[in-house]
């Protein structure tokens, strides 16, 4: 059905899949139904723009009692607690917890380094972002998706409700790997421009010398950050033997190595140290750090790993 219209983006819920023009389907419908049952967890209440389903730090109109406060001129008299007036003979307003929407910030690293690996890292990131977005949309949250590397238009602002799933998937499918991306600069820019800080999910391989700076920048506003660290099996367990000239996919920079067992062991040691230092850094700043090997199926990762880590419920 979808193959008849290559440019058409469709979300089909029964017996088919979500596809785009170029790529394989992001998910099948069965997985989407499973996603329907998930909710993105937040550790604290955050401010939203309009009414939604999330507890907000504001007082508003839900059924959950929050507090009383004395009436001041101009308050809505409908909120006066008359029972209390009968006892105290003074006006008090009865305040309820406001339930507002949340803005979920999805940051997808589409730099050239992500366009690599088997299974492909960027595809993995797309599917993860789609899953996060879909879960957020199904709980009436607002979703903002931003890709790092590309220029203008590489941002999908504020889609909301299940109807927003379609443009979200389309946007992610359209997302092309860009050239070189300065992770730190992109993060700083995003922090400056973002409104309504909320849960922020960063899908990246962090293969950037300035990864610490980027994370620090994100931490400067009250986002609730989840870092999904995506690495391909070829990066986690390189199978090289012989003399090679390794070319950086982003910068084209070359490194000459003689790959033997000793070299590979040293590489693995470096990799482990690096991952540990990221983890330490994240731990110190309340960032949820989740490593993922693209060899692990996305479905399995989301339904088990992320639930275990308390990202979803």
């Amino acid at each position, binding site marked *: 059905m979808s193959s008849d219209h290559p440019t058409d983006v469709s979300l089909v819920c029964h017996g088919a899949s979500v596809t785009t023009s170029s790529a394989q389907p992001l998910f099948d419908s069965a997985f989407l139904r499973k996603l329907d049952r998930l909710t993105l967890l937040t550790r604290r209440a955050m401010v939203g723009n309009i009414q939604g389903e999330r507890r907000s730090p504001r007082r508003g109109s839900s059924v959950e009692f929050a507090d009383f406060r004395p009436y001041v001129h101009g308050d809505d008299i409908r909120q006066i607690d008359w029972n209390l007036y009968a006892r105290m003979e003074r006006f008090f307003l009865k305040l309820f917890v406001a339930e507002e929407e949340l803005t979920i910030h999805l940051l997808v690293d589409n730099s050239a380094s992500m366009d690599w690996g088997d299974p492909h890292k960027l595809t993995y990131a797309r599917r993860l972002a789609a899953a996060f977005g879909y879960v957020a949309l199904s709980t009436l949250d607002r979703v903002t998706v931003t890709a790092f590397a590309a220029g203008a238009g590489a941002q999908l602002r504020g889609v909301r409700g299940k109807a927003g799933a379609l443009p979200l998937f389309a946007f992610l499918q359209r997302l092309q790997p860009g050239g070189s991306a300065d992770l730190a600069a992109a993060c700083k820019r995003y922090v400056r421009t973002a409104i309504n800080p909320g849960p922020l999910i960063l899908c990246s391989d962090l293969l950037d010398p300035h990864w610490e700076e980027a994370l620090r920048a994100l931490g400067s506003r009250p986002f609730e950050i989840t870092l999904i660290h995506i690495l391909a099996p070829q990066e986690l367990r390189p199978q090289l033997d012989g*003399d090679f000239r*390794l070319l950086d996919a982003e910068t084209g920079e070359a490194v000459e190595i003689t790959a*033997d067992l000793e070299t590979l062991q*040293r590489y693995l040691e470096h990799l482990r140290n690096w991952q540990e230092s990221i983890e330490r850094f994240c731990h110190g700043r309340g960032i949820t750090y989740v490593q993922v090997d693209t060899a692990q199926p996305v479905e399995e990762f989301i339904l088990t790993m992320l639930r275990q880590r308390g990202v979803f419920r």
Partner: protein
Amino acid sequence: MSLLAPLALLSALIVGPLIVAMYLLKLRREERRVSSTFLWRRMVRDVEANAPWQRLRRSWLLFLQLLILILLAIALARPFFLTTGISGRNLIIILDRSASMAATDVTPSRLEAARRQAYTLVEQLPEGGRATVIAIGGQMEVVAASTTDRRQMNDAIRSITLSVGSRGDLSQALALAAALSAREPDSEVAIISDGNVQVPTDILVPATVRYFPIGQRGENMAISAMTLQPGPAGQMLFVQVTRYGSAPVTRRLDLYLDGSLFNAYELSFTADDAPGSSQTIIADIPAQVRVAEARLNSAPNEDYLPTDDRAWAVSQADSSMNVQIVGPGNRFLATALALLPGVTVTSATTAAGAVDPAPQVTIFDRVVPETLPTGNLFFIAPPRSTDLFSVTGVVEFPLLRPAPSAIEGQTPPLLRNISVSDVNVLRAMRVEPGIWARVLVEGDGSPILIAGEREGRRIVVLAFALQDSDLPLQVAFPLLVSNIIGYLAPGSGLEASQITPGQPLIVAVDPSATAVRVVRPDGRVEAAQVQDGQAIYASTGMLGPYLVEQVRGDQVIEQRRFAVNLFDPDESSIAPASELRVSQVSGLQQAVTREQVGRQEIWRWLAVAALLVVVVEWLVYQRTSLAYLRQRFRHMLAARRQSA
């Protein structure tokens, strides 16, 4: 060290740069795109701290490959060392295998050392060189004839075994070598021997003769003679022990009679005794003893040749020989025959009377029968012709002299110790012999003494009657009779029971015997060949007593014993000769020793080294896989230990 093909070194100059160029090409690494060099860069920064070592390790392979190249190039250039050896292309190896080569002064034995020397010479033979291998000692044998196949040469050399037969005789072998080397240029003759060989003086070898002496020491003691004779108290044993070295020595001689120890004698030689001096033991022993054996007890450092430390003697008490004289009667002859031990003489006027047992020798004194009897014949002054010869007349007063053919070389056995020139003869028959006969003595152009073999029987003809000469009055007469009987009836008498290794046993066979068998010293029983009333058994290479039995049905009708001993002073004096006098066409009178002309090539070792380096190079190349395998192995071990 020099090179046979120095141009081959150029190959290194050609291939070497090729290897280096290919290595440099190889250094252009395979390019591979990775997501990011971020992690690799950090690692390389670490590695570059010990970069010189890294670079060295990377060039390990290059180094090993160049090493292989150098080794192979040198091997191709065929380096060699000069050693004592040969330089010709046609090699004739004369290898001594006589008894003295059994000496153990060089471990394990001289023969083995000689074989090794021969292998070395074959090795030094240039590509396509030919070799002939001749073994001397006992029967001369050409074990490899002009072959280019090295394996065949080596097999031939390996097949040479000791032969305790007669002394190594170079004359035959050198004659053959001279003939072979005359045919082919660039020939060399290599004599590998201890020098205890008969060297001919009349052969001029048209090639370089090299002598490779084998052996170091000459200490040896030998039993040089041993006989058992009838004596006043039964039998008398006579043993002679000779010391060939010069060191003082004391040895014990054990005497065994029919297998059991009889007596032991202490023999000592002092340093004052000349080399070759001997001591004699004479012992009275019982008459019934059949075989006596003498053994010198072993002494490893005083006697390097064990072969001659044992000797045997056999009793002759029961052997006899029948001689029949046919004729008018001859007192001289009867007396001379009676002096010979073990001879039974019967007389008859004519040959008609059949004698039992059939006589081995029949003497016709001035008569000739119509039909000749079997057995060997001795005619004295035959009055008329027979089938064997014809009588054409009479020669008056012939002047006797040895026939010219008898002068060349050695004295024929019949004339041993006899001078015929002072024998005066009144009248002799003019005998015209058949082609079978050899004239030993002639007088005025007419044969006087002829001898020969015809149809398996031996015949001697003396042309004059004893009464017509003064021969019976001379000392030569009994000797001549003894020689003639010894010739006509071989294998009888004292002398005949004592034979040298390789000499055939000859026994006159009773016509009624159905088989003749020989019991060898090692207990094996073999059948002897019987032909024309004689049994001949030739494989007497083993020392010890032999028993020849004639069998009729199941019954043994006659037994004769022989003792095969190495009574050869030339073989027992094992001191090696350092020089060998062989005349050569080049004018040299002496075989060349210790000239460094042999080329010991070493390319094989270089090739082996190159092969080893190839293996090492492969291991270095595969070191990652090897390390991986090692790790897997370790994991496997650990897993097994955990599960245990």
